[in-house]
């Protein structure tokens, strides 16, 4: 429900609740006022009559225009004035008027008189009807006005909020956003808060990005120095013991530079620096990577069973596709046993790599974490699967691992949006032919 609708509903229900109460008060007030005015007038009439009685006019001659009756009484009652209201003077229940009678008591020339005047005033039911009519019109008008003006007003007042929301929707970590000016205090506060938050996010993102860039440069250079010096040292006149030491150092430097490169890659992935805009033939990537690993497969005498569908167009950055395939296949080879097997299945929906190997020592869900590796191979850096996971996250794929003795099964489910279907494929190929 929209904010403006909520406000309108609330407002209308308040009016609906208060209207009967106010109508009741209104009815009472009008009635009382009419009564008071009428009583005052009738009293005056009675006074006038009494005055005429005092002047020696006989009671019988007093009946002129107004329905005033003069009666002689034996004694005066306690009250000097008696007011009687008769709601049903006609005797039926639907009289349009009520009769108001004012009896005044006077002593004129030693005689006691009762002067009684009466008049007809609108029945309270009539007043009520009039009020109900008014209330009905009033309600209708209010609902209409509130409904329309609230909408119009919300367009105007909530305009800033809507704009702010639009800006937030399109927020990109790479640049700061400017929020619209407003004079509403709450929106001003909201905008200031959002501005602070997004600016901080942008700043932090830039800092992280800068760090990863600096890290690459600043760490690669000393590593290059170390490596160069070690290489020069290894060519000088050294004995076997020294050679072994140098080899170990070489190894450590190598590993350090590998970790460095992998971490930089991970941060690049997390920063979404690989924007995907085109589809590539993933089957071709798979074949190429497989070919590149041929010699290593041969060395371990691993049988490869491949079941690759043709024409699989996947929306993925070419570098990432290469890396994904490399990491997965590299893992399958590294963790394999001598004379093992690898099964590679690639369809439009998924990529599955099954390989033989020793049973895993780490729980499967931990394998995708950084620096997590099974002990079989302490040589590896332990970032391969973390990179795979990050690539899958960037591309909206789902990666899972499970072990079903004796096979390790790694499965990557492609998201349906990123695979081009058969119909679109022809179009793609035509475009490719044209551009070629």
């Amino acid at each position, binding site marked *: 429900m929209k904010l403006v609708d909520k406000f309108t509903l609330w407002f209308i229900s308040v009016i609906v609740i208060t209207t009967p109460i106010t109508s009741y008060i209104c009815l009472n007030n009008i009635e009382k006022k009419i009564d008071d005015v009428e009583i005052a007038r009738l009293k005056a009439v009675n006074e006038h009559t009494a005055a005429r009685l005092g002047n020696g006019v006989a009671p019988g001659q007093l009946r002129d225009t107004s329905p005033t009756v003069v009666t002689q009484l034996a004694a005066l009652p306690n009250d000097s004035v008696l007011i009687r209201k008769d709601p049903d003077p006609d005797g039926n229940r639907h009289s349009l008027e009520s009769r108001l009678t004012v009896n005044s008591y006077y002593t004129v020339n030693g005689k006691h008189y009762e002067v009684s005047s009466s008049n007809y005033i609108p029945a309270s039911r009539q007043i009520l009807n009039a009020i109900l009519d008014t209330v009905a019109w009033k309600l209708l008008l209010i609902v209409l006005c509130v409904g329309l003006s609230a909408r119009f007003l919300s367009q105007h007042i909530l305009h800033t909020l809507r704009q702010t929301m639009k800006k937030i929707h399109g927020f990109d970590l790479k640049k700061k956003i400017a929020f619209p000016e407003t004079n509403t205090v709450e929106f001003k506060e909201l905008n200031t808060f959002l501005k602070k938050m997004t600016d901080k996010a942008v700043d932090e993102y830039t800092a992280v990005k800068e760090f990863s860039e600096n890290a690459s440069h600043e760490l690669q250079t000393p590593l290059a120095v170390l*490596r*160069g010096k070690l*290489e020069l040292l*290894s060519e000088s006149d050294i004995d076997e013991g020294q050679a072994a030491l140098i080899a170990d150092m070489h190894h450590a430097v190598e590993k350090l530079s590998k970790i460095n490169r*992998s971490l930089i890659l991970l941060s*690049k992935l997390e920063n979404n620096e690989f924007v995907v805009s085109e589809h590539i033939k993933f089957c071709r990537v798979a074949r190429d990577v497989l070919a590149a690993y041929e*010699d290593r497969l041969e*060395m371990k005498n691993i049988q490869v069973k491949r079941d690759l569908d043709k024409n699989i167009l996947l929306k993925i950055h070419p570098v990432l596709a290469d890396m994904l395939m490399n990491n997965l296949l590299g893992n399958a080879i590294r963790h394999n046993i001598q004379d093992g097997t690898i099964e590679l299945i690639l369809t439009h929906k998924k990529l599955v790599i099954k390989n033989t190997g020793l049973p895993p020592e780490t729980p499967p869900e931990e394998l995708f974490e950084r620096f997590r590796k099974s002990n079989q191979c302490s040589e590896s850096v332990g970032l391969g699967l973390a990179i795979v996971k990050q690539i899958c996250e960037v591309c909206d794929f789902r990666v899972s691992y499970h072990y079903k003795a004796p096979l390790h099964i790694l499965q990557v489910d492609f998201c349906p949006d990123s695979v081009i279907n058969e119909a679109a494929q022809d179009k793609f190929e035509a475009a490719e032919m044209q551009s070629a």
Partner: protein
Amino acid sequence: MKVLVVEDNKEIASSIHDFLVREGYICELAYCFDEAQEKLLLYSYDCVLLDIMLPDGNGLELLKFMKEKGIQSGVLIISAKDAMDDKIRGLEGGGDDYITKPFHLPELHARLRAIYRRKQLSGSNIVTFNEITLNTDTLEATVHGSLLDITRKEFDLLLYLVVNKNRVLSRQSIATHLWGDYTDNLANFDFVYQHIKNLRKKISAANGADYIDTVYGLGYKFNSSKT
């Protein structure tokens, strides 16, 4: 061959310098943009090793400058930036090759030789050492005139060894040269041993001398003093 090294890091520059001098090259050093510009104007070099990030300018500017002045030296870009965009920018800007830090010196040497071959020897593709001849164009290797049946990887390996003869090549540097980025995934370098073994077998089968020495713990060396 005369080489100019434009590199702001003195340590790396001196490593490269020592390495190239040992190889018998004439090697000049420039630590900043201005110095490099001056040297390029005054002297001519066969090849320039160019760092992209210099304290007082961008290496790419230097490439532009060289193009404007019609300086014909080959350019090998050395950079810590390994993003694809940087590589593309460097190569399209006029670089002949691009190598990222940290690199192995023999790898640098091999690439330098490759640029030299292409640029100065007008694309002569034959590398010869005694009875061994390598044709980098057709990827054919012959020993005493008879063709060796070797794989692409073995060819690259032999070429790498011959170009860096009498130099200790660590298994890592061989792996990086042959497999490039793929080595990130490799647990050990046994497969280098395997390739060397095959290569030795094939050369001796063609009655070639066994020039490849194993340097204990470190790697291999193509020993040219053997006959």
